[in-house]
């Protein structure tokens, strides 16, 4: 007898509820076209610096192909603790307060799963990286969004945050500099938010993945404020600063009890991050500052160039202080984010990402990544200019 199978029943309810990523549909359209200049890429266009790749090759040559400690190799954890102390002024114990993960994505996942009871509320600010809300839901938490506004440069206001705190709020997730807006959190606002967290006994998950890509080099992590280390999970990785996205390597630093809790999940799911990637990451931290600085200089030039051209063609965008994205205001064109992106792709073969893919308050904006070679950016700027001038004539 043939059994009737309803495949929908196999899928857990909380997974069924997760919407498809808004970027996914768009990705498929772009991927099917040729000769597209893409400003839609959320990863560095640079190949990983050679000395880092060479360290990975050397690891293979020496037969470094086994597991490491669940927490990550002691040498790498030690180097991470040194790096975080030096650049962020926060002291973590390399043995008990640092865990190496498979990218910051995994670090976010294990952090959320380690702290969330079913129904706990976790607040995040949007527009934001596409994985935050689904990661909270997958940890059986309730994702609570706080909208940020263009007028505020998309930074998070403490008073907006206060409005959504309830007795069930467990944690807030911060990502400054922000993907997709490039927003940063100014110090006074950071202090107010820290005070709110203390007042309501909240944890903070701070995703610092773009913190090495700030152009004024004045980044301060909320975890460095007095009394905050104890309630922060500091998340960082190598993908952006050292152009190591494919290595899938990141880390979390947190008080020992939290690190231990994250380790329990990590040891049964991932066991450990790839030893080859860990060796590469070690080289990045030990000798990578010059190559990271050279890439940062390039991003800064491209940022200035592209933002000059957007403002010059009448599309407003603020000069982001970090990351490698311009969040361009396209409301004057009368088109929605999605219409603008699709029309631009169709008419000029330039891909940008509709702002609403990062949350409803991204509507009216498009994200333009300048992690693309300068000659491509120059052509893209010319094409967007002619697209925008045609739109204006019509209006």
């Amino acid at each position, binding site marked *: 007898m043939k059994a009737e199978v309803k495949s929908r029943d196999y899928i857990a309810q909380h997974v069924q509820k997760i919407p498809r990523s808004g*970027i996914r549909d768009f*990705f498929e359209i772009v991927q099917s076209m040729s000769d597209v200049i*893409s400003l839609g890429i*959320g*990863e560095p266009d640079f190949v990983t610096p050679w000395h880092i790749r060479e360290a990975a090759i050397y690891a293979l040559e020496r037969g470094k192909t086994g597991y490491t400690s669940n927490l990550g190799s002691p040498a790498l954890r030690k180097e991470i603790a040194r790096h975080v102390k030096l650049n962020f002024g926060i002291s973590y114990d390399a043995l008990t307060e640092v865990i190496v993960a498979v990218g910051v994505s995994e670090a976010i996942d294990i952090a959320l799963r380690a702290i969330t009871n079913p129904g706990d509320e976790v607040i995040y600010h949007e527009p934001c990286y596409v994985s935050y809300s689904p990661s909270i839901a997958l940890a059986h938490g309730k994702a609570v969004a706080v909208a940020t506004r263009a007028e505020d440069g998309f930074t998070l206001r403490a008073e907006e945050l206060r409005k959504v705190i309830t007795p069930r709020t467990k944690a807030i997730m911060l990502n400054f500099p922000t993907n997709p807006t490039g927003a940063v959190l100014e110090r006074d606002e950071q202090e107010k938010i820290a005070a709110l967290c203390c007042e309501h006994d909240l944890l903070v998950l701070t995703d610092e993945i773009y913190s090495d890509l700030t152009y004024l080099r004045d980044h301060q992590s909320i975890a460095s404020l007095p009394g905050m280390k104890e309630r922060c999970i500091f998340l960082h990785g190598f993908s952006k600063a050292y152009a190591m996205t494919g290595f899938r390597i990141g880390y979390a630093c947190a008080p020992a009890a939290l690190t231990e809790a994250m380790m329990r999940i990590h040891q049964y799911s991932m066991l450990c991050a790839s030893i080859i990637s860990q060796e590469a990451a070690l080289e990045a931290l030990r000798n990578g500052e010059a190559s990271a600085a050279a890439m940062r200089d390039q991003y800064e*030039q491209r940022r*200035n160039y592209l933002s000059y051209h957007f403002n010059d063609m009448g599309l407003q965008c603020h000069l982001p202080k970090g990351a490698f994205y311009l969040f361009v205001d396209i409301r004057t064109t009368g088109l929605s984010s999605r219409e603008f992106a699709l029309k631009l792709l169709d008419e000029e073969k330039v891909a940008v990402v509709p702002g609403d893919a990062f949350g409803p308050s991204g509507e009216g904006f498009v994200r333009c990544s300048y992690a693309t070679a300068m000659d491509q950016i120059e052509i893209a700027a010319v094409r967007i200019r002619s697209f925008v001038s045609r739109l204006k004539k019509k209006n």
Partner: protein
Amino acid sequence: MDAILKILEENALASPDFIAECLNCDAEEVRRKIKKMEEDKVILGYKAIVDDEKAERTVVRAVIEVKITPEREGGFNRVADRIAKFQEVKSCYLMSGSYDLLVEVEGPDLKHAAAFVSQKLSTIQGVLSTATHFVLKPYKEQGTLYAQESFEDRLKVSP
């Protein structure tokens, strides 16, 4: 000044307008600073880096280790200057170690390069000895790889 130089060292064709847009400053200012650096010989020149094989040119290159006698006045400079002025000499450096000058020579064929060494270079007063090494294959030129890396399978859109 430094930021402008950095851009020009990467791409000497970068226009003052382009540089100004990259550095968020005034184009006139950039133009003025570049002119000043050219006048002060901070910028010595602008040249293209050519792959001779692709340009279908036969070029023979050699690096020559030269030992010379330093002079009472001027040390190595007079002889070094004299060598450096030959058109065949592409670069010339005073070195530490077992020889004094490293001279890079270029010619249309082996005969020309060899003739330069035997007839011009080694006969200069003060040159004690030369050791010539011919270049077999170049891999990197002035910071530019011959086989440039590209990463074309990068996803076109990613979060």
